[in-house]
């Protein structure tokens, strides 16, 4: 167990296999994660219809007006500088109602940010984090694991859409086809009352055992999202990194209207980026890890690793890193400083891993 954002979380389940086994289970069968530490912020209208949407549009960079009820989008809350408060999944849960799912480590900050910056809009902000537990079932067999436990026809729930149904007999559970692993999968939002989360956790483990489902901890969560090139706050995105540097422009809709950070992003776009996120694969024998320095041939530092680790499925040592644009072309060789040695790495296309299309 380890501390994470104020929560006591398992890094792995050694008795059942450990990080590598968990990682491989998600890529080949299914894995079950307790992600109840995530924050859940609900925006509702206050009287006037449309207040919640207006508020969401102002505080986030993607275009929430494109969402149908039951649809979700990856987005981010930005500072006026165009840098990241947090990344977020915006779910349209009602006519004018939006659920923002945010990171555990930034939950308090995000809540304060949302409350402060939506104060000018006719909307109500509710923190549902303590009343919602969240479980993620991820992997090619995720639907097979979950289907016997729910009355929802999971085949009807498309990627980045969600619905409500009963799970293990508990009604009105939100089931979303989202995740943080690069695989198909579901995230279910269970009221944290009575012992429903534990009951459902145990029933899922039971149902999935025969299909190869393993419970998974933070260690596998990190290696999976890294292979899939999904950002982790504090690493690829932070308060000092902007949207263009992080290469998340496809989630930023500059044409949707004004939002916090838009003006700065416009200026930054004109000025050009000084660094950009790139994917690396180690060529020399060794593992690049978070915060390791990256140098050019002459030994001068040109960048740093944001996240680095062995990739259990790809069987390579991979990393995400910030590099100057002129050093970020595919095929570029750079040198990672690993405990005093300079090891060669190569810029490769991202994502490192893309799940096979069924």
């Amino acid at each position, binding site marked *: 167990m380890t501390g994470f954002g104020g929560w006591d979380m398992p890094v*792995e389940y*050694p008795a059942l296999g450990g990080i590598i086994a968990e990682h491989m289970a998600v890529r080949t069968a299914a894995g079950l994660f307790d992600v109840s530490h995530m924050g859940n912020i609900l925006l509702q209208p206050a009287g006037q219809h449309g207040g919640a949407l207006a508020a969401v549009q102002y505080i986030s960079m993607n275009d929430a007006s494109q969402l149908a009820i039951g649809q979700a989008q990856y987005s981010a809350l930005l500072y006026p500088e165009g840098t990241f408060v947090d990344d977020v999944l915006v779910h349209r849960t009602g006519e004018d109602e939006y659920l923002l799912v945010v990171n555990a480590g930034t939950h308090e900050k995000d809540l304060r940010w949302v409350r402060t910056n939506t104060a000018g809009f006719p909307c109500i902000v509710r923190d549902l984090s303590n009343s919602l537990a969240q479980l993620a079932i991820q992997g090619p067999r995720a639907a097979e694991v979950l289907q016997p436990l729910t009355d929802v026809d999971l085949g009807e729930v498309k990627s980045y859409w969600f619905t409500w149904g009963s799970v293990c007999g508990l009604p009105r559970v939100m089931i979303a086809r989202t995740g943080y692993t690069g695989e198909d999968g579901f995230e279910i939002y269970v009221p944290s009352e009575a012992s429903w989360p534990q009951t459902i956790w145990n029933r899922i483990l039971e149902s999935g055992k025969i299909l190869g489902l393993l419970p998974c901890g933070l260690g596998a969560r990190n290696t999976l999202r890294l292979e899939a090139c999904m950002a982790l706050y504090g690493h690829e995105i932070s308060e000092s990194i902007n949207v263009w540097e992080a290469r998340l422009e496809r989630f930023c809709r500059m044409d949707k209207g004004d939002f916090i950070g838009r003006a700065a992003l416009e200026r930054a776009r004109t000025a050009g980026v000084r660094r950009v996120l790139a994917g690396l694969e180690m060529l020399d024998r060794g593992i690049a890890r978070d915060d390791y320095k990256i140098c050019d041939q002459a030994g001068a530092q040109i960048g740093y690793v944001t996240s680095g680790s062995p990739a259990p499925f790809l069987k390579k040592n991979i990393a995400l890193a910030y590099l100057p644009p002129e050093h970020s072309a595919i095929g570029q060789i750079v040198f990672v400083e690993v405990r005093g040695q300079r090891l060669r790495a190569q810029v490769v296309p991202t994502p490192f891993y893309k799940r096979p299309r069924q």
Partner: protein
Amino acid sequence: MAYPANLRYTKDHEWVRISGDIATFGISDYAQRELGDIVFVELPKVGAKIAVGQVFGSVESVKAVSEIYAPASGEVVEVNSPLRDAPEKINQDPHGAAWLIKVRLSSPAEINALMDAAAYEAYVAEKPEEASA
């Protein structure tokens, strides 16, 4: 776990087996369990001189790097090279087949400072279980 009685142990979870003036070094079962799946090992070359208490190599799991400290001083006379391509052996047989290096000791008396199996067992029993899920 009952730690082999013929080995001596350090506070950093290395073990030593003595045979005349040649000592074999490895990392203990406690260390491999704490690390998890070992994916990489870095060892010195034959002929390298190592000094007691200094880093002579490293062992890496998916999530962490762990440096290995020399239990005693000497010159490396043999390296367990097959570990390079099969680092998981350290998880499987940490006290036996997955020895790391053999050293000709320069100050054999340094071994007297190390714990015996009973003392080491008591020492690790006091440690909080890191991965007990």
